[in-house]
């Protein structure tokens, strides 16, 4: 990637343009060495960077001993399986897993094949370009619908939006929904001529991801809860050998994007995006709920922040720009986005959009969750009613990746559903918005005639390969 002033850990990495505006009292001194050897020198920036490298070399990575100090829920899960309490839906070699590291340095397997798409209830109704871009990318990588992935109608929302918004629902209902959906994923292979466990769930939504992990933890910790939901799952016929099926890992789609980023960039990328300034907004429920399970990579942001989103943007060659409210929530707030939008819009404008615009001068803000994209995308326009006319295109990381790989901004990336100025980004990437829009409008006429092109059609998937 091209280091930029504001890229974390990359402050002074290049000579040109490294002078940051707004510094006061600058007297041009760098550092040489450390300890009592601190001296005044006139080092060049590059030399200064070298001299301060010791900071990074001297410190041990986070992986050293945190892992031993913290309790890994997965170990308890294996124990429960040994005791015959549960069945663990395993990630096998057939899933072609890639190994990543998480916050405490634990390893996590990310399946890259034979995936069961678990869609997001906000995404699909609101920003459909999110799942379509994902499916499109999978197809482009040569994955075969129905064999390498599945998109079923037999799934429900995780229902956590409602729970976090209203408090209606409870741990039992959340747990039953979780186990029902994941049981379906487990057995779905059978209808297509495969074994149970063939397809492994790939969760599209940040909140579902966080919620499922939390619920899994409760299930593993509480025998009472397991007992209660077992009754329900039994009634639904969703036990295997009388046991609950719990997945080895809960996997978020953006983790799949993370592990596939180099293949996406090397095999599929068609558009140079090195002139694009990207800001990343990682969903709170991705990396703050059960945070020990979020992906951290020593090569991305020094392993100091979750690698998700930044890693794919960097792999594609875009500039990732740091900004002061990186850690902030988007302002979604569950019930707030529906019934208390005054808060949502005020927060997202003040803590996200304004900062991305003014501080980072971003061409696009990438997110990895439905709620975040909706919040930041839809609530920009209203800012102009109070002299906050800040605008930044908002989309999911996979939508941006698909665009860079030549996907149609309308037909595939479905940007027509976004309210933020995605036109600007598309144009900057060298794609004509108006021409593709015209083509899409012609396609709409075809659609009216019933001539629809599919990335995937579940009926075709039955019985195996398409």
């Amino acid at each position, binding site marked *: 990637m091209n280091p930029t*002033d*504001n890229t*974390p*850990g990359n*402050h*002074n990495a290049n000579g040109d343009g490294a*002078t*940051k*505006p*707004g*510094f*006061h*009292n*600058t*007297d*041009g*001194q*760098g*550092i040489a060495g*450390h*300890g*009592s*050897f*601190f*001296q*005044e020198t006139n080092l060049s920036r590059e030399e200064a960077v070298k001299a*301060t490298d010791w*900071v*990074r070399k001297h*410190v*041990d*990575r*986070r992986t*050293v*001993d*945190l892992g031993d*100090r*913290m309790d890994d829920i997965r170990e308890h899960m294996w124990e429960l399986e040994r005791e015959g309490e549960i069945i663990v839906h395993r990630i096998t070699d057939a899933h072609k897993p890639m190994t990543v590291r998480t916050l405490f340095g634990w390893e996590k397997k990310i399946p890259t094949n034979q995936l069961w798409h678990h869609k997001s209830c906000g995404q699909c109704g609101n920003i459909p370009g999110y799942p379509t871009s994902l499916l499109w990318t999978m197809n482009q990588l040569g994955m075969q619908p129905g064999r390498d992935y599945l998109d079923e109608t037999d799934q429900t929302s995780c229902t956590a939006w409602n729970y976090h918004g209203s408090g209606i629902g409870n741990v039992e209902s959340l747990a039953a929904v979780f186990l029902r959906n994941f049981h379906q994923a487990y057995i779905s292979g059978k209808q297509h001529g495969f074994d149970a466990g063939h397809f492994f769930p790939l969760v599209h939504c940040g909140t579902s991801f966080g919620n499922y992990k939390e619920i899994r933890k409760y299930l593993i910790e509480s025998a009472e809860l397991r007992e209660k939901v077992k009754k329900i799952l039994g009634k639904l016929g969703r036990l295997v050998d009388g046991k609950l099926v719990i997945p080895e890992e809960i996997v978020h789609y953006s983790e799949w994007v993370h592990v596939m980023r180099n293949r996406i960039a090397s095999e599929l990328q068609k558009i140079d995006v090195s002139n694009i300034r990207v800001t990343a907004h990682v969903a709170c429920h991705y990396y703050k709920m059960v945070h020990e399970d979020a992906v951290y990579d020593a090569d991305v*942001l*020094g*392993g*100091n*922040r979750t690698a998700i989103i930044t890693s794919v943007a960097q792999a594609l060659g875009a500039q990732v720009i*740091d*900004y*002061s*409210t*990186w*850690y902030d929530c988007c302002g979604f707030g569950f019930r707030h986005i529906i019934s208390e939008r005054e808060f949502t819009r005020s927060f997202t404008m003040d803590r996200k959009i304004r900062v991305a615009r*003014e*501080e*980072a001068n971003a061409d696009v803000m990438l997110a990895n969750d439905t709620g975040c994209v909706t919040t930041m995308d839809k609530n920009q326009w209203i800012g102009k009613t109070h002299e906050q006319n800040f605008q930044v295109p908002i989309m999911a990381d996979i939508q941006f990746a698909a665009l860079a790989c030549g996907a149609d901004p309308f037909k595939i990336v479905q940007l027509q559903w976004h309210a933020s100025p995605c036109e600007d980004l598309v144009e900057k990437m060298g794609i004509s918005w108006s021409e593709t829009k015209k083509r899409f409008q012609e396609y709409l006429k075809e659609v009216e005639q019933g001539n629809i092109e599919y990335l995937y059609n579940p009926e075709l998937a039955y019985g195996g390969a398409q």
Partner: protein
Amino acid sequence: MQGDASDTVLVVGAGPAGLSAAASIAAAGFRPVVVEKEDVLGGAPILSGYAKLVPSGEWAKDAIGRMVARVEQDASTTVFKGTKVTGFEGEPGDFTATLSNGEHVKAGAAILATGFTHFDSINKPEWGFGTYEDVLTTTQMEQMVAGGKIFCPSDGRVPERVAILLCVGSRDRQIGREWCSKICCTVSTNLAMEIKELSPTTDVFIYYMDIRTFGLYEDKFYWKSQEEFKTKFVKARIAEVTTSGDGRLLVKGEDTLVKRPIVIPFDIVVHAIGMDPNEDNPEISKVFGVGLEKHGFIDRAEFYTSTCGTTRRGVFAAGSCYAPETIDDSISQGHAAAARAIAELHALARKKAG
């Protein structure tokens, strides 16, 4: 084979505790064998380049340097540098230690003065260390003070404001550090004064949950830094450190007295890093057959009648290998451990003599 078990005490580690233990043993007419894994003696104050020590105000290299000289110049003391103990067998009064250089040492007792490891701030990534060059640790800031000039590592400018964040790597269950590191409050107030002394235009803010400058450190450090050096104390634990558009750092917290979130610009942020158990403790525990308490420090068998004891008879301990400890208390403990070891050798000799 070196040493005579009846009058030799093995001292592991040559920091303040180990050096004081060795000095006491030699002064009592016994023979200390000091084994230090690093190539220099002096322990953390020397290895990490501390500036002026609490409470004396003496430079570390002078103060600890005297301790080193006292041990190195003593004829009855044997010192192994760059060496570790890899095996330790036998009974009280008759131990044999195997060293990493292949030598064997016979000793009647052993004192573990193996110290601690500085908390690694990279484990608290949301506080910006490793991401922003102007986020430093107290040891780095001490080094800067030792160098005689306060400036931002990123571009050398003189900081208008420095924030010191307390409890980094202490009192934090999220990262498995449930203990108070005891020294950071005092060290930080001392550092605040040193910064102001070197850079009078710099304002220092300390973000705290509690200020624990126990004993006589209250007025000499806490009050003095506040009243004479105008350090400001803000009751808040910082949540995140990021950077603003103009390159200054932003600390995000809640001012719990005003009861509002704060986002305040700073030029340097200093992590008052805590004390972890020595990262070698699992190895030390195995080699010496001593137990560790739940956080990973060396465990004590009994508090009241076995001062400086461990869970193995004949093996004593002193200083920050037990728990976060100050330099002067570590030194006292070193002497105490020496007394325990010598008493043990005397008792065994009397018993042998019948």
